[in-house]
């Protein structure tokens, strides 16, 4: 399919910035795991390690006025969208300077400034919301898109079907991006879905679809460019199945391997670490040097340390906050009318 690309992906600077971004996600979440072990982070906490290329590649395509919505495995996408690592870490620590003021936690990162519409905790629950965002874009006659991430287990939920049917029926500018990491918690794809090629599900809705190697950030980016172009210029939704793998357990309480997947399988997939895959591409093009990489790694580690310190020093929410933000006390007569995405 020869389509005009918004910008080329064969660009050394782009590769470098994607590498940096994936490295930031990786280092951020390594420290997240440590903070969890120390009891600084509580509740459910789902790491993105292994899947960084998906968030980094797909979100790199978006404009600032586009929308991103995702499930509870949301740290990586939030970082890719440009939300401050400080505000994310403070949220994980349950502090007032958190991006959701300590009310959301790991699973509910929200940021109005970057049109990051959450962090949702009910599997597939946010997929109809993405369809609604697409509806609102079309209603206003805008050319934004909504990029919606979810795991492969969500496609077995009725909300997925209902949402994609309406998006295709009404031709809404939404990109439904399935991160097929092979397991819905501990249940393998083949044990949960009657169709193993998730992308084929789109055929039920006569929706364009595509399968992509999720360990290759450039491939993810290229597929997203095609889908975003279709959405922006033709109001056509797309289902992208990104095949990836999570290197950690489902959540912090889940062993990395041993129950539902073997150590051998994990080791095999870890050979295709998204950071290593991009590194190989850069080496091939002579864009890699150990010194440069060491400098980038030191830079992102410093960012993560700063985020940790910021979060650690941020106060807990005051008790008065308990009853705040349950209702707004405005009406359309009194509110300013400024909304996300209107700039």
């Amino acid at each position, binding site marked *: 399919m020869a389509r005009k690309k918004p910008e080329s992906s064969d660009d050394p600077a782009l590769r470098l910035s994607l590498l940096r971004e994936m490295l930031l996600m990786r280092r951020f979440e390594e420290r997240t795991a440590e903070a969890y072990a120390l009891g600084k982070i509580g509740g459910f906490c789902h790491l993105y390690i292994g899947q960084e290329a998906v968030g980094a590649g797909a979100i790199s395509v978006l404009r600032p006025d586009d*929308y991103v*919505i995702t499930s509870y495995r949301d740290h990586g996408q939030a970082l890719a969208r440009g939300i401050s690592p400080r505000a994310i870490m403070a949220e994980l620590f349950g502090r007032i300077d*958190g*991006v*959701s*003021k*300590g*009310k*959301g936690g790991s699973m*509910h990162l*929200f*940021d*109005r400034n970057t049109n990051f*519409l*959450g*962090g*949702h*905790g*009910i599997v597939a*629950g*946010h*997929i*109809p*919301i*993405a*369809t*609604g*965002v*697409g*509806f*609102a*874009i*079309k*209603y206003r006659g805008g050319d934004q898109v*909504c990029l919606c991430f979810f795991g492969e287990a969500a496609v077995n939920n*009725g*909300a997925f079907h*209902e*949402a994609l*049917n*309406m998006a295709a*029926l009404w031709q809404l500018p939404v990109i439904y991006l399935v991160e097929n990491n092979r397991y819905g918690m501990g249940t393998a794809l083949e044990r949960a879905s009657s169709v193993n090629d998730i992308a084929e599900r789109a055929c039920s809705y006569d929706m364009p679809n595509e399968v992509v190697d999720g360990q290759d950030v450039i491939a993810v980016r290229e597929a997203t460019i095609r889908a975003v172009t279709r959405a922006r210029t033709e109001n056509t939704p797309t289902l992208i199945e990104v095949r990836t793998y999570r290197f950690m357990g489902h959540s912090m309480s889940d062993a990395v391997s041993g129950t539902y997947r073997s150590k051998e399988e994990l080791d095999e997939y870890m050979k295709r670490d998204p950071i290593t895959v991009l590194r190989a591409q850069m080496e091939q093009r002579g864009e890699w040097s150990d010194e440069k990489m060491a400098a980038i790694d030191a830079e992102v580690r410093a960012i993560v340390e700063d985020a940790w310190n910021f979060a650690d020093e941020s106060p807990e929410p005051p008790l008065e906050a308990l009853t*705040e*933000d*349950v*209702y*707004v006390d*405005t*009406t*359309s*007569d009194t*509110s300013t*009318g400024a*909304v*996300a*995405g*209107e700039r």
Partner: protein
Amino acid sequence: MAIITYRDALNQALREEMQRDDRVFIMGEEVGIYQGAYKVSKGLLQEFGEMRVVDTPITELGFAGVGVGAAMVGLRPVIEFMTWNFALLALDQVVNSAAKMLSMSGGQFNIPMVFRGPNGAALQLSAQHSQAWESWLAHIPGLKVVAPGTPYDAKGLLKSAIRDDNPVLVLEGEMLYNVKGEVPESDYTIPIGKAQVKREGDHVTIVSYGKMINVANQAADQLAKDGIRAEVIDLLTLRPLDAETVCASVRKTNRAVVVEEGWEICGMGAQIADYVQRDCFDDLDAPVLRVHQADVPMPYAKNLERAAKPDAQKTVAAVRQVLYLD
């Protein structure tokens, strides 16, 4: 003042608010070409077009979520459920998305939207189509719940609901759509969160809301024939609930009966009784009694259905009991 039906009062509210604010749209099953399953949206498609009067597939969870998404980025959806019975399929979006978004986003994303449709039993629709969900819905922080029982209240509360920047659930009644009453053609709203004394009296307080307010009024009429002056309080809003108006009345009458459409266990009446015992314990001369649906799935047979539903006769009996007349 014009005398119009509850249905037309809702229709006027929708039309006026859609004219007033182009971010308002209505979405649901049969709202467009069919003109509404109960004709509440009659004429709106012709006036506002397909983008603002949107027929959906039969997909309650899906279109409730579409509404939440649209509201999140600044539109003001009115989601019609053909009945609240079908809305059970959509409760994940109502409860987990609409109600909680503001809080879990730390105040960043409010959800200015309305979910509306008929609630409770009509006539001989049997178990799955005859359910009153208000206590489920009013349980949830982050939602507002209103239940108008008259055409005047229906128009004023729906307009307030559409203008509110929070998710508001409007509980209508299939048996109410044909009820007529005085409704001004002018623009007016009724404040959410305020109960109203619908009838003054000093012997007993009857607390009710929605469709049951008509039962309460009938009972008050019958009681008046025996010289019993009942004060009828219409809650109008079930969340936030105006306990103060209820308690002010009970302090005067010293007796209360709650008439509610739902089942007994954890029903609205239990909450009212709690407010009353807490706030006016020393004023009570009798226990608070409740008139509610029998604790069974609604049966089809006419006589059994009648036996299951709250009515004026049962209300009169409860009032006589709190007055120690029987």
